[in-house]
């Protein structure tokens, strides 16, 4: 079997805080094949961004600490890679797009300087060549009048345009992997669709694999091939996107689907509260025995409270779930 592009095994990330150790990511394993789009979903604080950031070792340390596990990218172990070798990968083989387009660009440098930075460093191009490539790329990401934009400062661009510029920076060196940490969360809905389409098109053109961190199941359905659902620092379900949407197995995933807002036909009088998952996310300070979701789960049994369920595939399919009673609580 050939090695996948990115393979994460038993990743554990801890945060040392004055109040105690936070177990932000606990035994997370997944892999991404070349050209594949993997979505990581889950609510705020479930560890999805921490997982994404730890791939490029971008978490500030201290307080963060890699407590175990392995991250292999194109056959190289990233957790032990030297700082300069890692810098070679960053922005070249692995691109990154952040959530906040308003603050991801340096306010005092022109767009042009920030866009050409990666090409100048990784490709050793001349300034003029880099500029020409960037103009072509900006045209590709549908920024009108790119030559003029290069002379402008970030505040002169709209949010959507800045996020396109960030995507252009991330894709400038044609990376094999793009990590997108909630790339559309800060954008309005029409711009979201455009930016997602753009990411999808670039993926198809360049064969880039994508790790997409999001909490928006609509986004997942639009672009992802495969989805992992995270809860309280663990992967609770890993499935192809169609399988997950057709047959969510973990009660938490079912809850997520049930909690999506739906338009009800006018006149049916069914406009009430949105469905919610009762209870609270557990504190990640003290790892609980048993399933982290058990306190909020209707199907929880004594076994759920004592024994942590492992991520296991069902019926030899690629659909795995970490639950003792998968598929029992149907979404209401």
């Amino acid at each position: 079997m050939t090695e996948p592009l990115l393979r994460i095994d038993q990743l554990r990330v801890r945060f040392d805080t004055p109040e105690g150790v936070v177990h932000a990511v606990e035994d997370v394993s997944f892999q991404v094949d070349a050209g594949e789009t993997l979505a990581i979903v889950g609510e705020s604080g479930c560890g999805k961004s921490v997982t994404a950031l730890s791939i490029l070792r971008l978490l500030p340390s201290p307080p963060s600490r890699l407590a175990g596990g392995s991250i292999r990218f194109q056959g190289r172990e990233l957790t032990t890679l030297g700082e300069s070798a890692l810098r070679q990968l960053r922005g070249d083989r692995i691109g990154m797009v952040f959530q906040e387009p308003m603050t991801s660009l340096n306010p005092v440098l022109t767009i042009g300087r920030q866009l050409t930075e990666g090409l100048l460093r990784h490709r050793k191009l001349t300034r003029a060549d880099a500029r020409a490539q960037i103009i072509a790329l900006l045209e590709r990401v549908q920024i009108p009048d790119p030559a003029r934009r290069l002379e402008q400062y970030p505040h002169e661009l709209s949010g959507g345009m800045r996020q396109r510029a960030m995507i252009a920076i991330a894709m400038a060196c044609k990376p094999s992997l793009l990590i997108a940490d909630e790339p559309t969360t800060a954008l309005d809905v029409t711009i979201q669709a455009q930016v997602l389409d753009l990411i999808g098109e670039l993926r198809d053109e360049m064969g880039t694999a994508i790790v997409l961190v999001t909490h928006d199941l609509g986004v997942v359905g639009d672009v992802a091939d495969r989805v992992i659902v995270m809860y309280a620092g663990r992967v609770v379900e890993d499935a192809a996107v169609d399988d997950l949407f057709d047959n969510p197995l973990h009660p938490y995933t079912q809850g997520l689907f049930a909690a999506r807002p739906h338009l009800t036909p006018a006149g049916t009088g069914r406009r009430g509260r949105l469905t919610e998952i009762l209870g609270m996310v557990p504190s990640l300070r003290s790892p609980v025995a048993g399933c982290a979701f058990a306190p909020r789960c209707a199907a929880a049994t004594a076994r759920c409270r004592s024994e942590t369920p492992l991520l296991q595939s069902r019926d030899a399919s690629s659909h795995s779930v970490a639950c003792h009673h998968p598929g029992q609580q149907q979404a209401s």
Partner: protein
Amino acid sequence: MTTALALEEDTPPRRRAAWRRHPTVAIGLIILAAVCVMAIVAPWLATLDPTALSPAKRLRPPSPEFWFGTDMMGRDVWSRTVYGARVSVITGLSVAALATTIGLVLGLLAGFDRTVDAVLMRIMDGLMAIPAILLAIALMALTRASLGNVIIAIVIAEVPRVVRLARGIVLTLRDATFVEAATASGTGFFGVLFRHILPNAVAPLVVQSTYIAASAMITEAILSFIGAGVPSSTPSWGNMMAEGRTVFQVAPQLVLFPGLCLSATVLAINMLGDGLRDMLDPRLARRVK
């Protein structure tokens, strides 16, 4: 609606001349430039040798011969005032440059390294616990009176403020998303420092350095006034006022003219600093276009 939009796009707001948008900067610059010119061309502006004694013409009121009158030793107050600008300008500029540079370097170190931060900032806190003027007096008491020593003493007193500012800027910027984004695209430590952190630190530091220049001029004048500053053989606005204060009632011009010059210069620098802050602050200036 459409016409309004079209109008906005077609006719960008007319940009007013820079001096009209920022009149305080313009006025401050003009006064400051005048003082600098005065300092540079002092030998040609002065009507007499500022140190030449003429005991026969002591304490003369202003006249065509002695524009600002003469002091107790018959020296020409106009010529001394003109030469005095040199001390103030040199002190102001060099203290601002030195304190800002040293403070920036120390602030960067403190911002990036926790251990350095812990040690350095306690020293800075200690220095700041002593009033700047007392610290400068104490330092001058240890050394010989000279312009160089005055500058060093004031720099030591002013540096902690810059260190605090620079450290604060670094701590804020270090965690900014654009720095994270730059790191994610392979920028190393020095790339982040020179391309992302320093350019963002320039504006606040430039503003701070103007205030330091103003404060340094006043401190120098105070030091010279109490006799701990530049030696009395070199005319400075501070020691002129000190010498003139005993005869203020008969010859107020001895205190008045250097005092006016000092006030005007400091006022000009402060106006420049306030204006620059508005001009350079991206949140104020850039969005209002």
